[in-house]
């Protein structure tokens, strides 16, 4: 058996994917694992890699090569470290073979990537030092509204209209949310407003690359259906959210571990 692994140590969550290369030269996913990153990046990486191997029913010795990616990619000693931009591009192209571009919204940054053949990066943009347009922005807002993050998406879809959140700065936007709360706007409307403000930021960034369809959305924030729809409205185009959107980076890392060997 030819087994490879990819570990994506993100700022919020760490993911691992174990793949097997079939005799006909295709990759098949054997195991997945996800855990919060926490303080210790290396420990998180080890945990998810062990978890993914266990789910695959494999021992660590079965691994031919492992590649790490994500914010903490240098924390875990593996065969090599590759940026999340290259890995998300490769992973997204695997999950959606016709993908023309990727929008990845992670815990602490967001990127838009224009893809070439086999997920090669043609161009990319990344948000700057600001937390606006990232998962962290949503976490801060969830705390301010006392709503679990998982409920953000479905709740926002029930809003009659979106509250106006004019600030894209996380700190100022939090103050604005508190003002909206004081003005008795419903949580649903405020969340819809938060999604719209964030979507404007993401779309503004994404338009800086040649955003060819189909546009894949990857990263943990892609699970938020309300935000996905808001980004679609801002961009005027449909986004493809693969089932394994959150694992796109780790999958890409595993594929690169195989292909770059």
């Amino acid at each position, binding site marked *: 058996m030819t087994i490879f692994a990819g570990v994506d140590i993100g700022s919020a969550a760490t993911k691992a994917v174990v793949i097997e290369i079939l005799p006909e030269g*295709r990759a098949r996913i054997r195991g997945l694992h996800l855990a919060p990153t926490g303080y210790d990046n290396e420990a998180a990486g080890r945990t998810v890699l062990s978890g993914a191997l266990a789910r695959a029913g494999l021992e660590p010795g079965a691994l031919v090569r492992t590649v790490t990616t994500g914010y903490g990619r240098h924390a875990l000693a593996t065969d090599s470290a590759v940026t*999340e*931009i290259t890995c998300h591009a490769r992973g997204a192209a695997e999950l959606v073979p016709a993908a023309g571009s990727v929008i990845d919204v992670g815990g602490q940054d967001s990127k838009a990537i224009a893809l070439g053949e*086999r997920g090669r990066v043609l161009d990319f943009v990344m948000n700057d030092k600001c937390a606006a347009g990232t998962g962290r922005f949503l976490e801060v807002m969830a705390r301010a509204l006392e709503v679990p993050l998982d409920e953000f998406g479905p709740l926002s879809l029930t809003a009659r209209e979106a509250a106006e959140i004019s600030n894209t700065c996380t700190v100022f936007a939090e103050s604005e949310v508190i003002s909206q709360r004081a003005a008795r706007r419903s949580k649903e409307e405020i969340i819809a407003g938060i999604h719209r403000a964030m979507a404007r930021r993401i779309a503004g960034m994404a338009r800086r690359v040649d955003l060819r369809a189909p546009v894949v959305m990857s990263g943990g924030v892609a699970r938020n259906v309300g935000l996905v729809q808001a980004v679609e409205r801002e961009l005027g185009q449909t986004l493809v959210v693969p089932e394994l959107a959150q694992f796109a980076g780790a*999958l890409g890392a595993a*594929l690169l571990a195989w*292909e770059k060997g």
Partner: protein
Amino acid sequence: MPDLTAARAALGRLLAAGSDPGAYLSRADRPGRRPAVGYVCSYVPEEILLAAGLHPVRLGARPGPVGPADSSLQSFACSFSRACLDGLLSGLGGDLAGVVFAYTCDSLRAAAEIWKTRRPAGSFYHFLNLPARLDGPGSARYTASAFRRLAGDLASVDGARPVSAAGLAAAARLTAAVRGGLARLAEVRSARPDLLPGSAFLAAARGATVVDREEGAADLIAAATVLEAAAAGSEPARTGRRRILVSGGFLETDEPVHLIEEAGADVVADDLCLGARWLSLPDTAAGDAREDCPAGDPGSGPCPSPLAADPFDRLAQAYLARVPCPAKHPPGPRFDFVRREAEARSVDGVVFLLQKFCDPHAFDYPDLAALLAASGRPSLVMEIEQGGLTHGQARTRLEAFVERLRAGRSAAGTGCGAGTAGTAAGTRTGPTGRGAGKGAEGR
């Protein structure tokens, strides 16, 4: 492995002086002990300060947070002007006999005006009002008159001597020796970045604007001689690394260059205020038009018109003929220079390190990036400011850019790695297999 001890020692002295000009100036054994005059902007002619018997010190930012300047400058002023003023207000101003500012942009003019009112009593101050338009009919005459005014005003500095034609000629020879030493190092950086990384070159350049110029020229020439011999007698220790040109302003920190190097690329060329743009200044000590310039050249780029007899006219000619700063007009000669340099140095990609809030650089960036893209060279833009980079994001951007350059070369069939493996598909989300193949895409 060649013995680089002597080169390392010489470069180490320059690095130390550039990292802490205040400590260098306070040294009891500083050669000459001539009065030190600080200056901001590479359009301030060091030749005039040297001819006046002074020690020119280029001001820049120092590591660490900005202190007193924050309460004086507007929030939109760039961190370079803020840091220059901060250095002066935090003590360096006391080590200097005076400061010469030049008209570069509104932020630096504001810093100059504030320093004018807050400088210690008796500290020399001069604002060199240079033209923004370099190709106007009166640009050279105006610049020469501004240089003469500076030379005249310097007579008020305690310990200065009158600026004479002979003094200017000697100063021109000295500055040409400094720039010549750096130009030789720039060649080593390009040919053998394993021997002289881009970060070491920039540290040497920064130090060369601080140390006593005779000492600096000697160290630069000594380092260049050792490194050239080492390059001739050895094979490159690293191969397969991408070649990068960095473009930007003064670049007060080498941090971004270090990150590029750590990402697996070499900075082999530059378009920086502290680097190639400054080194492009024609040699006014030569006394006549350069032999490599075609006869009848109108005086653009590195080829000045036959040099004027008057030393101030000659100096003005040279400063107008160098590769211009983005704050000057027209930008064409700079664009041509970057395009030529990228080609000549076999550059794979360009990293723009734009000073945050620096409008002149930001205005030129889109056209310059498009020009490079047209010649097949991708670029990355990063905003930088005093106080350092956001390391994680900066590292990711630079590493991703280098990965992209590697993949680009691989896809074009000039390397090995990604893009040549067999079909890869069939994950449980259901994509089907695709044919392998190489494809030359890119911008």
